[in-house]
């Protein structure tokens, strides 16, 4: 298996998107990969890089949507045009795109991979849930989206008989899976490396603890 190279990339800009930040970097020769795959982004001043799924791949760029809630994500959100960070990716396994009736489901910052996924699937319908109206501003990145705000849940409004591709907080993914057992779900776990070295991102898969960065982050029962 060939490993993607870690490259130093120039930051094009950082834009606000509700409470979130969209970090845009110069793509160079980096392959944007499949929707749902992720990249390890150097967080300036921190010991470990941060895993971020690709949000958008505009011409010549890679864009990552993040929620600046900790020291690493805040350092990334504080980047400015002309700064440089190391980027490693694409990593992991993304969504399978060979689905006849796709429905994108996202919750909170879990909507991050959906814009790139929506592009690849030619703008399928989407259902997005957010905590507040402010957070819901991120829905502008995703076409054909129905938006619900807490306490309404995505599972309250999800249409039936669809091939669900979902990313969001764990309780949301569990609830989606209960309704649609064959859904493709993108999970999250703390990662130190993103390429199978640290064993930090272990999650229970088929009754065993396995590395999410190697087996996922997109997992599917079927």
């Amino acid at each position, binding site marked *: 298996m060939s490993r993607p190279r870690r490259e130093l990339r120039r930051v094009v800009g950082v834009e606000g998107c509700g409470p979130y930040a969209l970090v845009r970097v110069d793509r160079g020769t980096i392959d944007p990969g499949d929707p749902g795959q992720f990249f390890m982004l150097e967080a300036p001043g921190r010991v470990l890089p941060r895993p971020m799924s690709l949000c958008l791949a505009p011409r010549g760029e890679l864009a990552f949507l993040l929620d600046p809630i900790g020291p690493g994500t805040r350092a990334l959100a504080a980047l400015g045009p002309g700064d440089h960070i190391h980027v490693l990716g694409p990593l992991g396994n993304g969504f399978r795109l060979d689905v006849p009736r796709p429905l994108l489901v996202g919750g909170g910052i879990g909507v991050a991979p959906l814009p790139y996924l929506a592009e690849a699937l030619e703008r399928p319908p989407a259902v997005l849930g957010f905590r507040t109206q402010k957070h819901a501003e991120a829905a502008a990145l995703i076409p054909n989206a129905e938006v619900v705000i807490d306490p309404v849940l995505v599972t309250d409004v999800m249409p039936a008989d669809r091939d669900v591709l979902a990313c969001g907080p764990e309780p949301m993914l569990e609830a989606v899976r209960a309704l649609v057992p064959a859904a493709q779900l993108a999970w999250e776990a703390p990662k*130190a490396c993103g390429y199978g070295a640290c*064993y930090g991102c*272990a999650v229970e898969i088929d009754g065993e603890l396995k590395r999410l960065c190697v087996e996922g982050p997109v997992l599917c029962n079927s």
Partner: protein
Amino acid sequence: MQLLNASGCLDALTAPDIARALDAFVTKTITPEPRDGNSPVRIAETDSGMLNAIGLANPGRERFLSSTLPQLRALGVPLWVSVGGFAAHEYAETCARLDGVTIELNLSCPNVDEAPQSAAEIVRACRAATTNPLYAKVSPHAWDMGETVRALEAAGADGLSMVNTLRGAALDARLRPKLARGSGGYSGPAIKPVALAAVLAARRATDLPIVGMGGVTSGRDALELIACGATHVALGTVLFSDPDAPSRVHRELVEESLQLGFADPEGAFCAALDPVVTMEN
């Protein structure tokens, strides 16, 4: 001087190109029985290091010997196998089944219960079971490092790996431990001074080879360990942030040595053991 990875910081089968950039690959610790490891959350970053509580996740001795080890041998990289257990005889039984590798005894994992025997007793049992080169991985928590390494040498160790992680904990915003296990092994740049002091103390007590490790992120860091008496250097946490660290640290190590007037990195060996006293007017 060889550059290795610290045990548990690289999976050579997932990233063979990184393993091949090292002079030797050290496996994750192998225990007699398979282990899933500890429940998540198993890692957390701190301001100047990281905590892990992986808990020796590994396929167990039998699957390692029948499946993993042949695949590792096919990589063509010299192998060190990290051996763990929960009693001296468990370590020794694994050692007896290994050939053509260097063995590193993990005597100091902070994330599992310890064997009831002392580190020296475990080394003695393993020495009786194998003629392979036998390294003892030392805890940085030893009160008297000189006494500890002399006991390991007397028990039959051919070399020392030092240091393992320190035990540490970190709390989240709501004052709960970030790691599910509560505490874990602390590694990264923060522990470099601990590693330097441990290697210095060990070198004053023994002539055994020492693999120095703990917070190495640059060639300069590696050279400092050599100056304290390390004969080899291992990379740990830095591999997580920079998979290209082996070739980079190799290159920087040579450059840094030349800049300081040494023909090669070995020229700096033990340079820190004979401090020159300077008097400033």
